[in-house]
């Protein structure tokens, strides 16, 4: 088990190295120069251009730039090209904002998918099963921002509360309880929207997994023994059906950065996805690359954790 862990860890490191090269090349080789972002600005003289290129090492060969970029990243000296602030500090602040949405969204996803998936599986072919299947497909198929606007219109009309941004302007001096209420109202819609796609996929997966389990021999044996249906399904069945989901805890990690660009843009939520989008617009290469790098690290860490968890929960896999 130890040898597997060490081997898999080093494999992940090698993968990360190649990812760092590819993402660097994708961004740096794209046509157009970051120094040309504002060519019509009269204050931006050719001398400034030279200074700018020198300041950000853009005049050096590509491999030197690669080395300098990652050296700065790991020593924490990396500065944004846009406002000269340290990139890691900026990202830390934004990640804290996104973390709220991510946690609430994940909580909603996992607490809704299991009941829906399990009852759909136990009542296979019933109205509930077909209805939840259909709704799951609708949720996967609807363009996210279109659905967001429908929900915003409904909530704003029905409850007359502001939902855009992280808090209402001018609420900073209100009572604690009002501020909490305000915060919750602002979080409801974006976190539900982030959860919906996950609910659709996860509940389908739970259903499939549960269906496979309840046709196993040991379930029939438990039934034949005369146990009540609840004990059979929830004690014998669910425990075994849960196995693959333990590993999915690792796989949700990358969702922290991945799925939030559009939703954070709609709700003007100052999170990491929106920061990535702003960085792309401003051609702020250090920020783009760092976010890309962090999300690759999250993906790799997620698969690593899920491999380890799998070995912990399923003794058959232990090597």
């Amino acid at each position: 088990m130890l040898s597997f862990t060490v081997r898999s860890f080093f494999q992940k490191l090698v993968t990360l190295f190649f990812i760092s090269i590819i993402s660097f090349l994708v961004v740096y080789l794209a046509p157009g120069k970051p120094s040309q972002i504002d060519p019509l600005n009269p204050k931006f003289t050719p001398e400034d251009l030279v200074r700018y290129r020198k300041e950000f090492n853009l005049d050096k060969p590509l491999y030197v730039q690669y080395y300098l970029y990652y050296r700065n990243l790991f020593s924490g000296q990396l500065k944004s090209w846009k406002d000269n602030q340290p990139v890691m500090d900026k990202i830390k602040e934004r990640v804290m904002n996104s973390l709220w949405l991510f946690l609430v969204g994940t909580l909603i996803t996992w607490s809704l998918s299991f009941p829906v998936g399990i009852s759909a599986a136990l009542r296979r072919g019933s109205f509930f099963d077909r209805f939840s299947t259909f709704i799951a497909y609708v949720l996967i198929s609807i363009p996210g921002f279109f659905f967001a606007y429908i929900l915003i219109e409904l909530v704003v009309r029905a409850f007359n509360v502001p939902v855009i941004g992280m808090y209402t302007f001018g609420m900073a001096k209100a009572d604690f309880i009002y501020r909490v209420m305000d915060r919750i109202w602002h979080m409801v819609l974006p976190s539900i929207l982030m959860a919906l796609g996950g609910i659709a996929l996860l509940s389908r997966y739970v259903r499939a997994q549960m269906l496979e389990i309840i046709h196993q021999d040991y379930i029939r044996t438990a039934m034949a023994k005369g146990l009540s249906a609840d004990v059979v399904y929830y004690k014998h069945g669910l425990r075994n059906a849960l196995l693959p989901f333990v590993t999915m805890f690792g796989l949700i990690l990358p969702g922290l950065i991945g799925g939030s660009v559009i939703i954070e843009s709609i709700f003007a939520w100052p999170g990491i996805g929106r920061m990535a989008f702003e960085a792309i617009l401003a051609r702020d290469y250090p920020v783009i690359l760092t976010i890309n790098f962090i999300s690759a690290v999250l993906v790799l860490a997620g698969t690593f954790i899920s491999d380890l968890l799998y070995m912990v929960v399923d003794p058959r896999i232990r090597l």
Partner: protein
Amino acid sequence: MQNTRNTEELAHGLAEEVPRLTEAWRIFRKNTLAVWGLVIFIAFFIVAVSGLLLTTGENPVLDPAKVRLSEKLLRPLTPVNTEMVKPGDRPVFGIYLLGTDDLGRDVFARMMQGAWVSLTVGFVAVGISVIIGIILGGIAGYYGRLRIKFMHVLCLIAFFVSMILLASGQRGPALDSLAVTLLLSAFSAVYHYLAAKGGTGPKILDFLFFDTFSVDTLIMRFVDIMLCFPSFFLILTIVALLPASIYNIMIVIGLTSWMGTTRFVRAEFLSLREQDFVSAAKAMGLSDISIIFRHMMPNAIAPVLVSATIGVAMAILTEAGLSFLGFGVPPPHATWGNILAGGESFIFDAPWLMYIPGLSILTVVLSFNLFGEGLRDALNPKLRKR
């Protein structure tokens, strides 16, 4: 004579042999949702083709680009104002079936044009990803056990370095590196030629031709690397950095979504490679190309078809998402995605500008998803006659 009767008697007790497609259709037909998906799928195809025919040409029946500033933001089914609009500028039947947008353009005409463009974006993107997936997956599955020689690794590295230098605009070093690539390839070609002739000369150079990793490792590690990128963010980055064009969007979506297909095809090929009919084909002396494309591919294509169907749906949604962020298909082409994104500013004044394209995308993407899932069940050998 005796023989034939025996076979007939034997066949009598067995189940009737049913062609695979008939069997698949029997399972598919039972799935009501999937059948509806297929019906909408076909209807969408007809709409898209007629949209292409009706909105192109010198004097199209439906003109999606005609601006009538006096007829802004009209509700669906509003008749045209005959006093303000010249006879040549009027929509067909003198009525705006789906209303007009903020420039007074006929939304119905734009939707008809957008249907074809959205369909093209989806199909071309998926076509690119399927072609890459089949080629890489086929190589990894069929030739996976071959090991790459050290010299060939050097050739590959030199080639990629020259491509990168070329892309970064350094012509001179790029040509040098390309020359090194050619030299190395020529060198290894001569080595292989001499080794095949059986001479003793090339034996000394064997140290340059030791085995490194396998083809399978190379391709599958590359798949792993590509899967680590957050896909929407990667697409957004590339599309935003490249100049805006409909082709770039199709190519970028295609180039970032082939990993699933590669995995399916490889997995199928790994199991097919060991089967008797492939050994028989090899024993008959068929070429590798013929074995791969005529004998193995038809057996491996089912999961690819399913993932392609769902891939088209995903590509249409991705295009809509890009349009919303302002990086979708640029203006001369209308797509459902950019009509939807354009209607966002008028959500309270002209809600139909969002609901019409939004619900259309929902219906079409839903039908692709349902049809794809139905196809998966129908082609799944586990579900055939129990």
